[in-house]
C-alpha cells in the first residue's frame, strides 16, 4: 500500500539543519491498522506528512502502490492524495462557515457528483451525528467535531487513512466508538495509520511502531516495552491482524 525506503527528512532553519527523520523504513499493507507512538518532537507528524504526500523527503523514497511518488508534480500529488488518502487532523480543521454535512462533502466539492450528499449524510449517521447535519462547527462539541472530521476523511473512500491524535479530544466511550469505526474500515481493506499517545488505541491496532528522535523501532501490539531507539529495524508488514480485543 504505502512504503518508505530509507527516508531522511532534514529541516533547514536559519543556519542550522535539523534532521527530523534519520532513515525510516516503514510499510503498511491494505487493511492494516498501525499506530505510531513516540515522544514529542520525535518526528511523528513529519512522517505522517511524508506518508500523506504532503511533503517530500530529503533522501529516500516514498512508494504508493509500489510507485515512487517523490518528486512528482504538485498536480499529480494532489490527485493521488484525493484518490487514495484520507486525513484526520489533530485540530479537526473544520471549515467554520460550513455545516457538518457541507464539511464532510468538501473533499468531493468539485466533483459534481450527485451522490455526495447522500454519502455524507450516511457517514455522519454512522458517526452518530444524524441529528447534527446542519450544525456549524461552533455548535458542536470537540468530540462531535472530531467525528465530523473522520466522516470527511472517508467521503472519497480512501484506501489509506492518516490520523494525528484521533482520540486526543475524546472521552473514553467516544474514543472507543471511533476506534471501532477504524477497525470496521480496515475490514474493507483500508489501511489506517494513527499517531497517538493514547494507550487505548493500542488495544485495537494490529501493530505499534515507536519513533524516537527520528529513528524507528518496532514492537508487537500492546507490549508496552519498546526496543532500542537507534536500531533501524525494518518494518515487516507481516503481522497478520492481532485484531481488536
Amino acid at each position, binding site marked *: 500500500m504505502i512504503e518508505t525506503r530509507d527516508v531522511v527528512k532534514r529541516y533547514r532553519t536559519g543556519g542550522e539543519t535539523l534532521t527530523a527523520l534519520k532513515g525510516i523504513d516503514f510499510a503498511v499493507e491494505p487493511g492494516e491498522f498501525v499506530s505510531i507512538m513516540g515522544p514529542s518532537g520525535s518526528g511523528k507528524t513529519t512522517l505522517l*506528512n511524508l506518508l*500523506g504526500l*504532503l*511533503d517530500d523527503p530529503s533522501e529516500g523514497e516514498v512508494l504508493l502502490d509500489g510507485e515512487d511518488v517523490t518528486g512528482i508534480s*504538485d*498536480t499529480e500529488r*494532489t*490527485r493521488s*492524495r*484525493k*484518490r487514495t488518502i*484520507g*486525513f484526520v*487532523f489533530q*485540530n479537526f*480543521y473544520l*471549515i*467554520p*462557515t*460550513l455545516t457538518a454535512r*457541507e464539511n464532510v462533502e*468538501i*473533499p468531493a*466539492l*468539485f466533483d459534481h457528483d450527485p451522490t455526495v450528499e447522500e454519502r455524507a449524510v450516511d457517514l455522519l449517521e454512522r458517526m452518530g451525528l444524524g441529528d447534527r447535519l446542519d450544525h456549524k462547527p461552533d455548535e458542536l462539541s470537540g468530540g462531535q467535531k472530531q467525528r465530523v472530521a473522520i466522516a*470527511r*476523511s472517508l467521503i*472519497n473512500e480512501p484506501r489509506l487513512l492518516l490520523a494525528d491524535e484521533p482520540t486526543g479530544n475524546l472521552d473514553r466511550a467516544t474514543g472507543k466508538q471511533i476506534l471501532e469505526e477504524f477497525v470496521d474500515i480496515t475490514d474493507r481493506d483500508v489501511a489506517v495509520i494513527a499517531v497517538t499517545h493514547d494507550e487505548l488505541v493500542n488495544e485495537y491496532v494490529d501493530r505499534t511502531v515507536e519513533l524516537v528522535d527520528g529513528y524507528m523501532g518496532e514492537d508487537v501490539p500492546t507490549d508496552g516495552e519498546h526496543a532500542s531507539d537507534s536500531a533501524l529495524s525494518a518494518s515487516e508488514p507481516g503481522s497478520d491482524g492481532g485484531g481488536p480485543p
Partner: protein
Amino acid sequence: MIDWLLKRFPALLMARRNIGRTKVRSVLAALGIVIGVIAIASLGMFGLTLRYQITENFDDIANQVTVEPNRDGRQAPTAISEREVRDIRRIAGTSASVVPLQQQRAPVSLDRGPPQNRFMYAVDSPAGVYEASEGTIPENFRSGALVGQQLAMEYDLEPGSSISINGSTTRVRAILAPGGTVGFLPTANVVVVPTTMFQQRTYSQVIVQAEDSQAANETAMALREQLNDRRDRFTVDDNADLADQIGETFQALNLFLLGIGSISLLVAGVSILNVMLMSTVERRQEIGVLRAVGFQKRDVLKIMLSEAVLLGVVGGIVGVVFSMIAGGLINHFMLDDALLAFRPDNFLYVGLAFAFGVGTSLLSGLYPAWKAANERPVDALRS
C-alpha cells in the same frame, strides 16, 4: 436560482460563506466598489449631459454650409443665380436640404405703427432650415410671413396676426423656434417672407443643411472644389472646425472626469486587496486543509477569485442602481428631463463603470488568490 448557482459552482458557495463570515469588512470593501462605480458612471454621464446640452444648441450651426459670392474676388459675381443654385443642389446631394436666401431690406410695420426699414430674408422653402414653435411652416412658401420668437414677444404676435411689409398687409404663418442662427440674422429676431414678395431672380446666400457635421464638411469641400473652378467666385463656409473643437474639448473633459472616477476605483481595489490578504492569512490553515484533501491550486484560486468577483459584482450592481439615480438627477437639473438619463450613451458609461468595478476586484483578488493557492499545505497546517 441562487441555490442552483451555488450547487453548480461550489466555489461560489465557499466564497459566499466566507464573505458572510466577515460581514462588516466585506460590506466596506464592496462599498469602495460602489463608490468607484458611482463616481465613474456619474462623472461620465455628467460630461455627456454637458456635451448634449451644448451641442443641442450648436447642432444646427455645425451642420450648416453657407455659400455666398466672394466679396473680395475681383471676378466674383454679386449674387448667386438660379443656375448656380441648381449646381449647389446637385453637389450637395439629396440628403441635404438646400435653401437659397435673398436678403432684403424693406419698410416693415409689426404693430400697425409707422413702418421701419428692416433686413429680412426671402426664402422659398423655409422648412429646410427653420422650425416653428407656434403655427406651421409651409412646404411651399407663397404668402404670409414667419417671425422670430423675440420679435413675436416684443410685438405680441402669434400665428394669424397681421403685419405690414412693403406697404401690403400679410399674415403671420408661424413663430420660429428659438436657438441657432441661419445666415447672419439670429433666428430670434428674423422676419422671413416668400421670394414672391420681391421680383428678384438671384440670391444673396445659399444655406445647405446637411445631415451631420461630417456631411456638412464633405459638402463644403465638394462645393469649394466644383463651384469655383479655380477662381474664388464663392465663399463656402462650414462650421466643422467649431464642431470638431467642441467635440475635442468634451472628449478631453470626459477623459479627465473618468480619470478622477478611476482614482476612487483604485482606492477600492486597494481595499479589496487588503481584505483578501487578511482573509488569506486568517484562513491559512483552512486552505491548507483544502489542499490536503485534494483541492488543486487552481481550485483554491477559483474560490479566492470568486470571492473577489462576488464583492465586485455586488458592489457593481449597487453602484449601477445609484448611478442611474444620479444620472436621473443630473439630467433633471441640467436638461429638465430625468428620463434623458436613459440615453444609450449613458448606459455605455454605466456599463463601463460596472466592468471597471468588477475588473478592479478581479485584479485585486489575483495576488492574494495566487498567494493562497501556492502555499504548501504542510506549511499552512503547521501554524
